[in-house]
């Protein structure tokens, strides 16, 4: 599917995301101007008062954006998910260029002109409004331009906290390893950045043209820089895999997967195999692509996921049949499916324990009756996958108050517990289910296919390294559902290191 076809088929959604993106950038840049210009003026005129302001703004800029989202999420008022956090982060990033250029603009005003204004009888306020600000304007506009362009880029990360925007396509594309979807978000955000840059360059030029031939340095340089940053960002996110030699163990990017990756790694290490850990790779499609491309040698997959998401087969509820089908298809690709580890991790449709008790909810069918008043939250993959939300909604007749919110998996349990959303799809083995007093609804219509955890390995690797084959085979049937939940809880709730948890498990 080409990008154009993708846009055509997602027209309404694309429009909404674009509007959200513009809203995030517009509001945050506007607020940053309202805060930053006065701060810059203060700092320029009262250096002693202004120095700490500039220091703070500088320091804030050095915090990586993802980390800043993390800091802000638990805070009251600005915390929680969605646009509020995103706008706060964007404001913090927009402040620096605006404060800086305001200070530089005001300081660069010829002192002779300031003296002239004073000598003519201007009060400090009149001097500021009639002389200093108009002369600093081109510089301030340049700062706003930089802030807006940075904002367009940073706003793509806002999708990670459910604020929407074009980043949603980028994240969705990354977790599906579908460049088309990545481009569907990356191209318009680049175009948006360049358009804003161009428009504000014209504004800056107009502001400068009113002044005597002040030099205006390269819009080309800044445009090139913007393009370079975008290209670098996308390619770093997409590539970032790697090279050769030891046995490389991969995992997807959630707790259970990291634990299972650790489990494979330590089991192999115990047999004297040198292991390289490539944990937290991303979603299903990234791991699948990595193992087919030889970037990893082994990782744990779930049979149902492989069946429907990777091989695009219609959901099947017979676990044996699914296992056999998956094993055969993997074999064609030179991959070996080992015997199941012993537990099944199905999707868990979760609600708050309090709601379940009050409304007497036991099954997903029970919940469907209340869905019209609810807001749902799902991971990007679940929203997109055939065995995810679309089928679930059809089978159970779910119709929510608003389109489900797209969220990062790591945030979804908390969002439900905090009342941001009323129903989510999580992992049946998550330790957070008990930790947050959530209740898993029974899949009474048997919609979700079986999700037995199995190790998938490159057949060539198994042939070349008998120790690897023996080690992986020994894990068969060793991990029960309660084992898995316990390990998940130890990591998620007790904050223990996955490596330690696995070490303890293997030492039983």
């Amino acid at each position, binding site marked *: 599917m080409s990008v154009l076809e993708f846009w055509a088929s997602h027209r309404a959604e694309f429009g909404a995301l674009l509007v959200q993106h513009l809203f995030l950038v517009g509001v945050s840049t506007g607020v940053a101007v309202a805060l930053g210009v006065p701060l810059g003026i203060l700092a320029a005129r009262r250096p002693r008062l202004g120095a700490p302001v500039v220091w703070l703004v500088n320091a804030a800029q050095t915090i990586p954006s993802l980390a800043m989202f993390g800091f802000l999420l638990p805070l009251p008022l600005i915390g929680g998910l969605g646009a509020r956090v995103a706008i706060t982060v964007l404001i913090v990033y927009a402040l620096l260029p605006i404060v800086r250029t305001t200070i530089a603009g005001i300081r660069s005003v010829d002192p*002779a*002109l300031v*003296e*002239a*204004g*004073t*000598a*003519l*009888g*201007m*009060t400090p306020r*009149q001097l500021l409004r*009639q*002389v200093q600000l*108009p*002369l600093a304007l081109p510089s301030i506009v340049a700062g706003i331009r930089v802030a807006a362009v940075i904002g367009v880029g940073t706003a793509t990360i806002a999708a990670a906290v459910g604020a929407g925007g074009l980043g949603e396509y980028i994240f969705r594309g990354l977790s599906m390893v579908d460049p088309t979807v990545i481009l569907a978000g990356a191209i318009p955000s680049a175009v948006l950045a360049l358009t804003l840059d161009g428009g504000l360059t014209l504004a800056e030029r107009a502001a400068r043209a*009113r*002044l*005597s*031939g002040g030099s205006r340095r390269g819009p080309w340089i800044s445009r090139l820089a913007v393009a370079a940053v975008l290209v670098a960002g996308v390619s770093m996110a997409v590539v970032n895999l790697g090279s050769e030699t030891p046995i490389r163990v991969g995992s997807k990017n959630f707790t259970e997967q990291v634990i299972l990756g650790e489990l494979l790694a330590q089991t192999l290490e115990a047999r004297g195999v040198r292991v390289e850990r490539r944990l937290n790779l991303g979603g299903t499609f990234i791991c699948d692509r990595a193992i087919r491309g030889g970037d990893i040698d082994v990782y744990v997959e779930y049979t149902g996921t492989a069946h429907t998401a990777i091989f695009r087969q219609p959901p099947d509820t017979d676990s044996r049949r699914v296992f056999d089908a998956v094993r055969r298809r993997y074999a064609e690709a030179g991959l070996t499916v080992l015997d199941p580890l012993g537990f099944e991790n199905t999707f868990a449709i979760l609600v708050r324990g309090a709601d379940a008790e009050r409304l007497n909810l036991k099954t997903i069918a029970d919940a469907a009756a209340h869905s019209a008043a609810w807001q749902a939250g799902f991971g990007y993959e679940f929203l997109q996958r055939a065995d995810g939300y679309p089928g679930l909604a059809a089978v159970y007749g779910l119709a929510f108050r608003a389109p489900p919110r797209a969220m990062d998996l790591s945030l979804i349990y908390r969002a439900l517990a905090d009342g941001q959303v009323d129903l989510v799809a999580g992992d049946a083995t998550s330790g957070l289910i008990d930790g947050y007093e959530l209740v898993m609804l029974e899949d009474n219509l048997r919609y979700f296919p079986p999700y037995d955890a199995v190790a998938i390995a490159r057949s060539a690797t198994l042939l070349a390294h008998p120790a690897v084959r023996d080690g992986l085979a020994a894990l068969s049937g060793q991990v029960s559902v309660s084992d898995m939940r316990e390990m998940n809880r130890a990591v998620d709730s007790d904050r223990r290191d996955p490596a330690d948890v696995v070490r303890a498990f293997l030492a039983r």
Partner: protein
Amino acid sequence: MSEIAFRGVRLTRGDTAVLRGLDLEVQQSETLALVGRSGAGKSTILKLINRLLVPDAGEVVVHGRTADDWDPFDLRRRIGYVLQDVGLFPHLTVRDNVAVVPRLLGWDDARIRSRVDEVLGLVGLPADQFAARSPDQLSGGQRQRVGVARALAADPPILLMDEPFGALDPITRSELHGEFRNIQAAVGKTIVLVTHDMAEALSLATRIGVLSDGVLVALDSPAAIAMSADARVRAMLGPLVEAASALQGGGR
């Protein structure tokens, strides 16, 4: 009557005394030129008059009130000021530059408009040709004229001029000297003019004060200054002695 008076004014900047006890009266409608080397304290005297600087000791009296008594902004709007490097605002047109002080005084638009036209005419820059231009579309001499027009716009009784012709080529300068005398005759302001150029002082002023190391060493008519026997005055005259006598001989 005296329009401006300095009584025992001292001013120290850091460790160096800029003025060491200055006594000076400026009479209404006279043109007083203050001459001295750079750093002699000439510009300082102007800044004390419009309270850009405050004396460490002594008092400065303007219009019969000590400078401390004045609201500084009000005082400055009543004193025209032509700066050394003109200081036209590059983001404003000629018209808006000239209109700065009338606007600060809250004049209505029609009055400002006609006044700007009038003073631009006075300095030889017809409003219909020049008012809409921006300062960077003017020659150095034209910019200096706009500076004078701006100082005259609110019709202040006092005009302070700090090296107003310093940066101009000799031909433009002598042209502007002519204009200056015309304006002087037309408006009858009390003018304090600072220059390091004795020839300029001799040709424009009605009285000349010579400053040396923060002290007023001579204060007299141009003719008397030109003939002075005081060594410090003669040092300022230097190579101009002949030019000065020639001027006198010319019977201006």
